[in-house]
């Protein structure tokens, strides 16, 4: 026949095609295997430990199902205090980083033109050094004979060096805010960078002044980036135990320290695993909330 056949539609009804994810499975399987072996299996083992218990006399783990670890956590005021302190710190650090990162990301995305790449690299450079080094650097800066105190005394804001800057929740807060800042700047910058400039022009054409464009176009479109950064800073703070150990005071234990001491000092793996499971739930809740906010932002 010499009559042209109409083009077949992409999804013919006469033949069911596999959903996209199954079609991609062969391509994904090495990564999935890696994920399963090095992430899911250890996670499963950890959660399994949380329903076992420790025989403290003989120092062995008793592999029988019990909820005693979770019960200890529920009745223990210590964990509640520490969890509250950690969540408060995580939220505080996240909010502060949002406030600090946004102007920087905005500057790089909209105002720097040729210097954009250089500025971007400068944001990334701290990540090339070890986290431990940056924490120790803050220890030096904030100490009694550190740069901050010397400066404040020299300009007569303080009459004597203050011990409040180091070995305190403030020291941890400053360190966390500084160390996680690049993780907030990057996604916010990415989100801002993706905003089609034509949208901004259109807003201008429709008569919106600069601030209005910002409030109704730029800010809502940057929300996914802010959410991605918030997820990073919140989760990282929830799990950290190094900064409290180096810069925290006697009253600065975070959830990470409690968990670490169960595994490293007390040899009570089941209790540590149970703590970890609870922290996982806290972070999961945060992720769901963040996702809601992010989805709301993108739905506009």
């Amino acid at each position: 026949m010499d009559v042209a056949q109409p083009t077949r539609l992409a999804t013919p009804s006469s033949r069911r095609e596999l959903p996209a994810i199954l079609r991609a499975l062969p391509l994904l399987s090495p990564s999935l295997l890696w994920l399963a072996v090095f992430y899911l299996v250890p996670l499963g083992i950890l959660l399994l430990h949380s329903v076992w218990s420790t025989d403290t006399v003989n120092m062995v783990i008793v592999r029988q199902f019990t909820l005693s670890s979770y019960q200890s956590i529920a009745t223990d005021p210590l964990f509640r205090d520490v969890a509250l302190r950690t969540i408060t710190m995580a939220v505080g650090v996240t909010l502060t980083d949002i406030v600090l990162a946004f102007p920087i990301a905005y500057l790089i995305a909209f105002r720097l033109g040729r210097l954009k790449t250089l500025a971007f690299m400068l944001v990334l450079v701290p990540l090339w050094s070890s986290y431990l080094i940056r924490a120790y650097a803050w220890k030096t800066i904030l100490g009694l004979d550190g740069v901050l105190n010397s400066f404040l005394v020299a300009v007569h804001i303080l009459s004597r060096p203050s011990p409040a800057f180091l070995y305190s929740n403030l020291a941890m807060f400053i360190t966390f805010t500084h160390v996680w800042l690049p993780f907030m700047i990057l996604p916010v910058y990415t989100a801002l960078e993706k905003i089609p400039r034509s949208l901004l022009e259109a807003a201008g054409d429709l008569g919106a002044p600069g601030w209005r464009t910002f409030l109704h176009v730029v800010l809502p479109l940057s929300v996914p980036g802010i959410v991605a950064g918030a997820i990073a800073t919140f989760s990282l703070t929830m799990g950290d135990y190094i900064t409290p150990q180096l810069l925290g005071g006697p009253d600065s234990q975070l959830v990470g320290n409690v968990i670490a001491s169960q595994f490293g000092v007390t040899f009570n793996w089941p209790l540590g695993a149970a703590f970890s499971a609870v922290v996982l739930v806290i972070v999961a809740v945060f992720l769901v909330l963040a996702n809601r906010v992010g989805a709301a932002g993108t739905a506009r």
Partner: protein
Amino acid sequence: MTNPLSRRGFLEGAASVAGAAALSATGLDAVAEAANPRDQRTLNLICWAGYNDPSFVTPFEKKFNCKVTGINPNSSDEMFAKWMAGGGKTYDLISASGDVTRRLMRSGTLLEVDVSKIPNFKYLFPKFHWPAWNTMNGKRYGVSFTWGPDSLIYDKGTFSSPPPSWGVLYDKRYKGKLSTADNPITIADVALYLGYKDVYNLNEKQLMQVKKTLLAQKTLLRFYWGSSTDLENAFIHHEVVASNAWPLMANDLRKAKFPIGETIPREGATGWADTWMISKYSPNIDLALQWINYMIGPQGQLGVINVTGYSGASTAAIPALGKQRVHALHMDDLSYFDKLKMWTEPSNYSEWQKIWLDVKG
């Protein structure tokens, strides 16, 4: 170009964060110790700071053509947890203090030591031949090589004369300038200060009183020290003026020309004796025995005493040390050893751990 208004745009942003996080995550496991495969001639130690110092390790490595690696945890509990985490198979030797030796002996991971293979055993003071903390069921499970007190160290700039009592660590006048060891065994020090007779056998009432004292002390502390270098740096930067410590810190600070004072207050002091114990799973048992022999011999003893300032359990280095140092280290009169309340494992140790974690939280 990906529509930023879509879920895909959101995920791309998240992915870039994850990528950066992965790059930086390698910095976060800086505290992981090097995983050392148990090849033929490497000796893996888990020991207190100062016990694997190059000054005496390097000659040993040369003499026996081997490599000696070590990690230095901050407490006996940490050492025990790390040892047990590998089932006793990760390390060849552990320098166990008296508060953890019994747990190790019960764990079934230790080798019974045959002292006929350790010629330098003859140098040991008789007191350390069959000490209760190394012996179980008539068998020896290690050889002690150092001992010492938990002394009070203080900044001579603040204290013109040595503080007479442990009370200085609970004194409001020094609020914010004190430190204490982050270790449950410190409860024994508190018990000593409170005047209890048997500091390792505390009943409920006494433990409650100790906890109260610790909670009151917490408000006066600058921080709890973990590693010896943390405490030493704190003194050097004038963050703290008094703390409990080991002679190692006083030794290091003196070497750094810091005006540090060291004293045993009137209440007395707790003390410890460190024992090298061998894993029965070690593939280098002969080398481990050589290490013990070396550490109680003239070179090892002199080396470890010079580095740490601890007292030796062996007489081998006495000629090299000289009369003055031997006297200062109480190695000429071991009745001093008897006066110290030696670290031992309390029967209700998990109670001690719970109290400690509660106080710190």
